[in-house]
């Protein structure tokens, strides 16, 4: 079965420090990977995706993610975290048939950025 795992329930960093949120995947074939963010009492917002091409993907709000095929990882990164980045982050992978656009989500990682 195709799935993603987020090994950390929580990540705490100080403002201005680098932020990394980890995600590993298990898929057969080429993975289509996504990151979403959920701010308190809001729906999920798309951050970025990896479909093909460059292993470093740039997305919204200064976030980027690095696809690593040998380590089956797709970690989300931000060079300098802001207090406003405090939120719940989800990694997801597309599952299903070629025209079946379903996503399987990880359990989520709560990011807290302290001032």
């Amino acid at each position, binding site marked *: 079965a195709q799935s993603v795992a987020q090994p950390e329930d929580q990540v705490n960093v100080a403002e201005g420090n680098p932020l990394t949120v980890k995600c590993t995947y298990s898929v057969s074939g080429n993975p289509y990977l996504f990151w979403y963010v959920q701010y308190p009492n809001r729906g999920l917002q*798309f951050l970025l995706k990896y479909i093909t091409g460059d292993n470093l993907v740039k997305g919204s709000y200064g976030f980027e993610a690095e696809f690593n095929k040998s380590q089956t990882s797709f970690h989300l990164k931000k060079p300098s975290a802001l207090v406003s980045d405090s939120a719940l982050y989800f990694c997801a992978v597309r599952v299903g048939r070629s*025209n079946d*656009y379903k996503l399987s989500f990880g359990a989520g990682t709560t990011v807290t950025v302290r001032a």
Partner: protein
Amino acid sequence: NAGVTQTPKFRVLKTGQSMTLLCAQDMNHEYMYWYRQDPGMGLRLIHYSVGEGTTAKGEVPDGYNVSRLKKQNFLLGLESAAPSQTSVYFCASSYSTPSRLAFLLYNEQFFGPGTRLTVL
């Protein structure tokens, strides 16, 4: 554009009661989805639809029914609510196309603000 909207935002039910959650999107998306979000479990797919008049089961379909009579609306029904259905429900929609290029460009899902349901 309003994007994806959900009604109601909050609801409290008693065990055995029924209700319908409404999702509407104004982006002309073919695909629509219903998820539930529970602490520590991420989002789990309940049902989804690949077009008007078609629905399919997701990961956790039991106790729920859906209908997609109009392209822009996707309804989630609970016929006899149970406390285990206490959750936050999210609707999402996405563009679909047989074109691989268009899929690469436009395939992310757009989410509504959620409905918080409590079943007593």
